[in-house]
């Protein structure tokens, strides 16, 4: 087994007296596709926020490729090679789809401090942006203002921005949230293709169990801020505690 790409130890986050995430330890191997699941309020997004630098953990540590990244700001973590998507679509509505991707590429190539050249004349950047858009089937929408894209295309653009930073670890926070079944199938297929063709390691949160069981090599279950179980899809399917956590939620509802 290779060294873990991401190693999370005893990660905790408390808001006042509420323990949103408590003592979670997790390791991801390079190129692994891991799904993080759990009922609403299980702490999945808080966990993402701590790994990606949006929130400072109250305890524990995160290391990426052997380097301690606990509490680093988002831009540092992004530069090291971790990129995340957001549950609520987080794109640049006033910019075109291409420009959305170019923002990420400009950052990636360290071109952000070029003040005296015209961005739209940068052929290399343009070609690269179009290539990323094509990967997600958005090539024809390159010149469309992102704000007027369909919901599904906005979600895809969100993923395009994530991939444009050329990460080694991709955190997808409910990539198919709010999508139609057709769009969900498309995105699922896309992620599988990307994972197969690239060196990305994926961590995905998802409510759609079809997507989870379809994509993941391994499933990690969170419940009430703690790690409840982890294992192969088959193991998780058979796990009693997991079923109770989910059934329990159904009873509450």
């Amino acid at each position, binding site marked *: 087994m290779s060294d873990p790409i991401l190693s999370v130890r005893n990660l905790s986050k408390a808001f006042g007296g509420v323990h949103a995430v408590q003592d979670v330890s997790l390791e991801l191997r390079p190129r692994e596709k891991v799904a993080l699941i759990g009922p609403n309020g299980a702490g999945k997004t808080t966990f993402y926020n701590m790994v990606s630098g949006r929130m400072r953990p109250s305890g524990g540590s995160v290391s990426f490729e052997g380097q301690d990244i606990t509490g680093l700001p988002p831009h540092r973590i992004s530069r090291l090679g971790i990129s995340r998507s957001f549950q609520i679509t987080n*794109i640049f509505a006033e910019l075109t789809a291409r420009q959305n991707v170019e923002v990420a590429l400009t950052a990636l190539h360290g071109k952000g401090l070029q003040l005296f050249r015209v961005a739209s004349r940068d052929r290399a950047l343009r070609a690269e942006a179009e290539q990323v858009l094509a990967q997600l089937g958005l090539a024809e929408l390159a010149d469309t203002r992102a704000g007027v894209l369909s919901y599904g295309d906005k979600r895809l653009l969100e993923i395009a921005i994530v991939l444009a930073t050329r990460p080694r670890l991709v955190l997808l926070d409910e990539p198919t949230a709010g999508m139609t079944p057709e769009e969900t199938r498309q995105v699922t297929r896309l992620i599988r293709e990307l994972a197969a063709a690239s060196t990305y390691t994926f961590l995905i949160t998802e409510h759609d169990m079809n997507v989870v069981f379809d994509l993941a090599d391994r499933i990690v279950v969170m419940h009430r801020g703690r790690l409840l179980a982890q294992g192969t899809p088959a193991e998780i399917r058979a796990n009693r505690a997991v079923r109770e956590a989910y059934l329990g939620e159904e009873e509450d509802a």
Partner: protein
Amino acid sequence: MRVATVALVLLAVAAGLFWLPSYAPYFYIFVVTEILLMGLFAASFNLIFGYTGMLSFGHAAFFGMGAYTAALLLLHFQLPLIWVLLLAMLAAALLAALIGFFSVRLNEVYFAMLTLAFGMMAYAVVHQWRSLTNGSDGVAGFPLREFGLGLDLQLADPAVYYKVVLVLVVLASLLLYLITRSPFGLLLRAISENAERVAFCGINVRRYRLLSFTIAGMFAGLAGGLFAPFNRVANPDMVHWTESAQPVLMTILGGAGYFLGPYFGAAMFVLLETWITTYTEQWMLFLGIILAVMVIFFRRGVLGTALDWLMRRR
């Protein structure tokens, strides 16, 4: 095609302005000089406001820094104007970097309040430091000799000074425009829309905001540096917080979403002020009404509204 049309129109306007002294009444040389300088001042402000998404309420500090630096250098050292202006820009940029260092870490209304507070401090310093700034009387009586670069210009002639202002404002505006179209400008626009997303792309947002703030301060310093000789005095009024409100009003009047919006706003502002004050003292009342109407009905400013109207007619 459309780019060519815009370029042609702008060239025609620039040419018309260049030969303004040969056909317009003398009085309008002063009016247009003021419009150009306030336009540059407002456009520099709009780099922070329209392009980076931060409402600065202390921009007069940099305009004033430029004006006082120019006035003092002319008074004590009689340097050529071009060097005076470059030093005025440098001084304003340094002040902007200092104020920005503390301000850009705050968001929204807190940023606006902190820049306002720094602006007020700048005013207090200018007003109280009498040995240097001559208090409320300001720095006056400085001579305008040569321009520098071996150019033989009679700067004391308002028509000549007007042309110097026109050329420098056009050059500075082209530079500012290039910055807004650069990769840096693209990131600023992205930051104004969604700073957090930009951070997650690997950009240190605070650094970009600070650089934008500093560049804006530098161009405001140029506008101020050119304004002091035009005004024949650098006085504390130029640093007062009401002076900081002017680029805000001009930009909203003209349209923050367009590079030329602030220039249009400055032109409207100065022309209306000039015309209305010949009839009535109540200029502020009319300005208030016009601004209220703009904000309620024409959010995109005069330029934005006019362009929308032109597009629809096609």
